[in-house]
C-alpha cells in the first residue's frame, strides 16, 4: 500500500472517530508523523481531488478519495485477518501496521483467497481499536 493510500485510510478512520472532518492532530497521531508532514500530504491529495480541506476544520474525503480509502482499509483488514487466521500472530495490529507499506493490494487479494472475511468488510472495522470488531486475537482458522 503506498503512502497516499495510507493517508486516505487514516483520513477515513479519523472522519469516523471525529464524526466530521479529520483534524491534522488526529491524522498526525494515527500516522505517527509530524503535523507539517500531514499538511503537506493533505495538500497533495487535495490537488489530486481526493480530499477537500477546510482551514481550522480538517480534511474530508471526496467520493473518489472515499472509494480509494475503502479499498485501502479492505487491504489492511485482509492483512490483519491473514496474520491472525493463517500465521497465528497475536500482536496482529502492530505487525499489520508495520507490514502494510510493503503489501500491495494485488498481493492482499491473493491472500484473501484463503481467509474467511465477513461480507460487510470493511464496515465492521473499529476505527478506535484499529481492527475489525469481528476479529479477536487468537481467532485462528485452525
Amino acid at each position, binding site marked *: 500500500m503506498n*503512502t497516499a493510500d*495510507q493517508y486516505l485510510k*487514516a483520513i477515513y478512520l479519523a472522519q469516523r472517530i471525529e464524526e466530521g472532518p479529520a483534524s491534522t492532530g488526529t491524522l498526525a497521531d*494515527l*500516522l*505517527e*508523523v509530524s503535523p507539517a508532514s500531514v499538511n503537506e500530504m493533505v495538500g497533495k491529495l487535495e490537488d489530486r481531488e481526493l480530499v477537500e480541506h477546510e482551514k481550522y476544520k480538517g480534511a474530508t474525503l471526496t467520493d473518489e478519495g472515499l472509494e480509494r480509502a475503502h479499498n485501502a482499509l479492505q487491504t489492511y483488514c485482509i492483512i490483519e485477518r*491473514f*496474520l491472525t487466521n*493463517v*500465521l497465528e*500472530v497475536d500482536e496482529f495490529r502492530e*505487525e499489520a*501496521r*508495520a*507490514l*502494510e*507499506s*510493503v*503489501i*500491495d493490494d*494485488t*498481493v492482499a*487479494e*491473493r*491472500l484473501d*483467497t*484463503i*481467509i*474467511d472475511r465477513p461480507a460487510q468488510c470493511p464496515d465492521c472495522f473499529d476505527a478506535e481499536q484499529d481492527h475489525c470488531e469481528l476479529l479477536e486475537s487468537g481467532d485462528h*482458522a*485452525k
Partner: protein
Amino acid sequence: MSLGQRVSNDRQLTRLLQIGVVLEEVVESRAAHHLETLPPDERDAVDGEVETLLVDAAEESADHRERLEALIDDLEAETVSYEEINTLVDAQYGPPEDTDGVLYDQLANEETAYKFYDDLIAAIDASETEFAVDRGRLLDTLTTIREEEKEGAEEVTEIMERRA
C-alpha cells in the same frame, strides 16, 4: 502505522518471507485444484501445453518455497505447512469456468508473486538493518525467484496469445 517502504527488523523480514511461502503454497495448491476440478469436457480440452504449465508451476512454487524456508530457518522461525494452506484453499476455492479462466488465474498468480518479490527487494534495499540472515544471500535468492516469476508470467502470456 509505518510510512515508507522498508523492512526494519528480523521479525518484519520473517513475516514477509512467511507470506512469500504462503503465496507459493497457494499457487501450488490452486494449480493442483485447477487440474482436478475442471469439468470432464473441459479437462479433455486442456491440451498438453496448459497441463505442463500447471505441473511446472506447482513444481516451481515448491522449489521457491524450499528456498524461502531455508532463509526462514536462519531467522529461527517456522512456516505454515503446505497441507494447512491446501486445506484453506480448498475451503474457499471456486474453480474457473474453463481453460481460459485457469490461464487468467495462473497469470494472476505469477504477476502477484512478481509484484510481491519486487516490493520486498525494494523494501530490503531501502533498509540499512543488519539482518540475522546474510543480506547478499537474501537478495540473491529473492532476485532469482523474482526473475523466475517474470519468466512464468511471460510463458502464460505467450500461451494465451497463441490460443487467442
